[in-house]
């Protein structure tokens, strides 16, 4: 058990999820291990289909129909969530682990006021007398940065802007003082200027030092603002786990992480379109047809024969690690250029 280190909030060990599809059995989460400490914000980065959302949902034991979990442990505050029954899980979801979804407009009930929806949480999870519920909800709305919480309490979701709705979602997520907050692409639907404020708010969640944050995103600029550590997923596996300072500073270890970092225009750089972006060749392989060796090998500039036939080992270097035969650590090397 992870009790030896009480700074560890969550530890996932060798988690795999299998799903039966028409194309055959796939493993969208494959031997995933990572930990989140108290007061730590961990980012989970990956492209669509990499398994990042499913990994996030696994932490709430929310699996799609037809999924099985052949191996792994999800130790949350020392307790293996995979061994809990439905009733015990209900006590954990929302109360000790909560989730913020991508689109607040589809996660909120359009015919109930914000006040009613958040009050419901207190009524179903706590013994708080009704007279105090309203007060508590308004306090939560205020701590989520909503300027006029009394008015928001009485509003319906459609009366709020996108940014305000996402703040309401955050208020709901922190309502019961959970220890772990999972935010799945929380800023995708927002105006860029509003997104930055939401990121600052999320980032403040971990300041209590008791809470942890798992921030799922494909936007590295946002990840850079929020996270202490970065996990990169590719084709169901975690291929890199590095401190953010290292990832964005000296550069990541895994060639895929490096390619992701350099395939986006920097936003400050002096080079324009006369210099092609170092794009990654090809595309993510389908999960039902993975290559025998490293899943990234067919697109990797560093790959050799061994990468194409054997599963790469996990190699650590200080606080960083990567699933690669050739983890590399020069600052932004030169990946191939594609016209």
């Amino acid at each position, binding site marked *: 058990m992870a009790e030896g280190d009480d700074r560890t909030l969550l530890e996932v060990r060798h988690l795999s999820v299998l799903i039966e599809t028409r194309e055959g059995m796939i493993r969208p989460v494959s031997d995933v291990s990572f930990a989140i400490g108290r007061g730590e914000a961990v980012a989970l980065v990956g492209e669509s289909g990499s398994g990042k959302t499913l990994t996030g949902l696994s932490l709430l034991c929310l699996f799609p129909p037809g999924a099985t979990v052949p191996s792994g442990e999800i130790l949350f505050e020392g307790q293996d969530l995979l061994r809990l029954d439905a009733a015990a899980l209900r006590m954990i979801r929302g109360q000790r682990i909560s989730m913020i979804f991508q689109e607040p407009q589809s996660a909120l009930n359009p015919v109930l006021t914000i006040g009613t929806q958040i009050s419901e949480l207190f009524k179903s999870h706590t013994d708080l007398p009704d007279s105090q519920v309203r007060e508590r909800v308004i306090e939560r709305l205020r701590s989520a940065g909503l300027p006029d919480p009394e008015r928001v309490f009485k509003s319906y979701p459609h009366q709020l802007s996108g940014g305000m709705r996402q703040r309401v979602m955050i208020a709901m997520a922190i309502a019961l003082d959970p220890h772990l907050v999972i935010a799945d692409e929380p800023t995708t639907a927002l105006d860029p200027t509003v997104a930055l404020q939401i990121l600052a708010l999320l980032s403040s969640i971990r300041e209590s030092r008791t809470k942890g944050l798992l921030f799922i995103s494909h936007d590295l600029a946002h990840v850079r603002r929020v996270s202490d550590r970065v996990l990169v997923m590719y084709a169901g596996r975690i291929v890199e786990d590095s401190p953010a300072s290292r990832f964005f500073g000296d550069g990541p270890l895994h060639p895929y992480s490096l390619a992701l970092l350099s395939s986006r225009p920097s936003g400050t750089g002096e080079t324009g379109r006369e210099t092609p*972006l170092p794009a990654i060749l090809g595309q993510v392989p389908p999960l039902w047809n993975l290559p025998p060796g490293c899943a990234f090998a067919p697109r990797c500039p560093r790959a050799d024969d061994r990468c194409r036939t054997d599963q790469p080992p996990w190699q650590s270097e200080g606080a960083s690690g990567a699933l690669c035969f050739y983890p590399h650590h020069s600052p932004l090397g030169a990946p191939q250029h594609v016209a």
Partner: protein
Amino acid sequence: MSPESSPLLETRGLVREFDLPGGGLFGRRKTLTAVSDVSFSIGKGEILGLVGESGSGKTTIGRMVMRLLDPTRGQVIFDGLDLTRLSGRSLRRQRRRFQMVFQDPYASLNPRMRAGEIVGEPLLIHGLAPSVRERREKVSRLLERVGLSGHDLERYPREFSGGGRQRIGIARAIACQPDLLVADEPIASLDLSIGAQIINLFSSLNKTERMSLLFISHDLSVIRYLSDRVVVLYRGRMVESGPTRTVLDAPVHPYTRLLAGTSSGTPSETQNGAGEPSASLCPFLTRCPEALPVCRESMPPSLENSESGRQVLCHLVAGHSSWKSSASPSLIQGSP
């Protein structure tokens, strides 16, 4: 004007209003002004970036430029011709010269047509490759041009990845060798690594085929990388425009400053209903961290800095010596 200096595309005072439901039989009809007084130009071989949040009117402008939507007022001048006055055959004859790449490659391709038919259809419609053999050859070349192969001719859209489908959409758009491509968030639905490939394809089309591009995006770093000039929209109005680097490195309008991350202020969020900005005042007023008393009294002037080729709609720089009132309201000149 010599042909070289006249812009390929010019919009003059574009306005688009939409009727809102409600109002009843005798009630006053309500309208929503999605685009207000938008004037810009694109030179030959130039890339113009159009940036703004969702709902700022970017897509509506793109559709008016394509004449998929008629403007309520204003003109779209394409190579000297007022497109808003053309119809029927004369419009169709021009259509092959401006083409569109859509955001969602899943929704914009006919699932029952093969890639070859999708890309070959515009050639057939415009009679550019009458024989089957000729068309097949041309389509193969087009597919190769966008990074696919001749083997992909017989495949259906569902057999391609998102990036592959976007390449088909681009191949179709460039089939008739248009002078102008309008690309509406073409990489928003693509993965990071695939997006970079598509951006490179656009810059290559601009460089080798000299295609002009109206590139619509909410992503400033992509706009910065790709475009020569930029137009920043807020609630349907142009709040700032000019050469991309100049505008993004030293933005003047408070909204652009927030977007570019050079502002220390924080915008206030308003409730959609109650805080609706008045149509006769600055569209950004309700969220502006730097609003002056005058901003609550009158519409900001459209100002021009002729030296740097910039324009801004803001009270903050009014009276500043380098900013003069624009001769023609919010019209920026192309400088290819």
